[in-house]
Structure formats: structure tokens, C-alpha cells
């Protein structure tokens, strides 16, 4: 498995980015994370699983509860975080181009 590419793919998904943003400042349980989204619970679980597999999230057991927290160390290399940033601008510019092509001015 290409873990490096997986990190980019993980971040390319808007819902997963939203989860990372949510966890950037606090640890939360899966239930608490899911309550922030108007999305089916199994879907959120799937996203958490992907983010955990590529080590962007870490699980912490506290009694019966499992807390997820953001593993910032995963994003420490410049080369690792440039590509997702580039992808975001590329998406944005693609949208700009598409809008300007389709509108009649």
C-alpha cells in the first residue's frame, strides 16, 4: 500500500477534511464526530477508518470510549502537504474555468 498517496487521497475528500478540521482543536468520540454531520453514522465511521489507516487520526482508549485525535506529525514534511494544497487550488481554478466557460457575458 502506498501510504504517501493515501494521505493525499484521504485529504482530497471534503467530508474527511471537515473531520480533520473538527479534530484539529479537540479529541472526540466517533459518536460526537458523527453528530456534527448530517450524514449516516456508518458513512462517518468509514471516513474515520480511512483517516486512521493512513495515520492522520490516532485512536485513544479511555475506559469504554474511543477518542480520535488529529496526528499533526503526519503532515510535517513540506513535500507531504504541498500536494493536497495544490489539489485544492486546482479544484478551485477548475471551477472558475468551468463557470466562466458556461456563462454568457
Amino acid at each position, binding site marked *: 500500500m502506498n501510504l504517501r498517496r493515501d494521505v493525499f487521497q484521504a*485529504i482530497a475528500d*471534503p*467530508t*474527511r*477534511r*471537515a473531520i*480533520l*478540521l*473538527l479534530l*484539529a482543536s479537540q479529541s472526540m468520540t466517533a459518536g460526537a464526530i458523527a453528530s*456534527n*454531520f*448530517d*450524514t*449516516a453514522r456508518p*458513512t462517518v465511521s468509514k471516513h474515520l477508518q480511512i483517516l486512521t489507516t493512513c495515520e492522520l487520526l490516532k485512536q485513544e482508549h479511555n475506559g469504554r470510549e474511543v477518542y480520535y485525535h488529529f496526528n*499533526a506529525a503526519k*503532515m*510535517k514534511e*513540506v513535500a507531504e*502537504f*504541498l500536494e*493536497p*494544497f*495544490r*489539489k*485544492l*487550488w*486546482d*479544484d*478551485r*481554478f*477548475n*471551477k*472558475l*474555468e468551468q*463557470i*466562466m*466557460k458556461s*456563462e454568457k*457575458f
Partner: protein
Amino acid sequence: MELKTRLTADEGRQDLWISREFDLPLPLLFMAYKKPEIIEQWMGTKVLTFEPERLGHYEFETTDPMGNKHIFCGTIHEFEPNHKITRTFEMVNTSFPVQLEFLLFEQLTPETSRLSMHIVFKSEADRNNLLKLPFAQGINGAHNRIQEIVNRLKQQNHE
């Protein structure tokens, strides 16, 4: 698919270059930066204030998927149609310092154009911190797409 956007962030520097060639005539590319209703569409943001003139200012508001509102604002220093925009950029209520942005618009052929953005940060560390939060940057444009995904999932759940 190959990305059309180029990004350069050299080590030991506190700036960043973003460039992109568009399959659009120069005036159309610039219009996407000039008309508030178009900015709203591609940036996925709400334009609260927009004064495209020397020492004018702008204020954008975005809503994240959790419903939280974020304000982005800045001052415009240069606004020369079909040529350049120089402005500051600030994310209100965050620890990120103000950044300086130089946008250069060029015609390549009558039907194609290029945008080059040069962003200068307060320090190299500030630049890298911003780069580490691509989800914070992308969240704005991502909002509508998240809504689409959510709607689609809802439909699937009903079927």
C-alpha cells in the same frame, strides 16, 4: 488526472507561488476576480464587502459543513483590470498572521491566459503552518460539494 496548477514553496523562504494557465481569454479570467457574484460561485463564499479599488477593502464569509461562519478580509492596494491585484489577506479569529498577495494576470493567446499568485508570509513557519491546513483552506469551496454528497447519501438511504 494531471493537475494544471503549479505550486512552488522553496525551503528556507517565506513565500509561495501558485500559477495556472486557463482556457479562457484574459478579460474573462479577470472578470472572475472582479464580479462579486462570480467570486461567490467559484470561491464558495459569501461576499460581504468588495471595493475593487486602491485602498478599498473586501470581506468574505464562509460557512463550514458544521455551520460555523468564518470571515476572511483584507485591503486592496492595487487593482488594475486585466493586469494585477495586490492585496492583503487575513483569516479573522485565527492565529495566522496577515499575508500579502500579488496576483498577476497575463494573456497567452487571445483564447488563453495565465494567473500567477505570489503570496508572502510573515515567516517560513507561518507559511508552512498554513500549508499544513489544506482542509481549512479547501473547506470553503468544499462546502457546496459536501452538501451535494450529503443530499445524495440521504437519497440513497431513502431508497
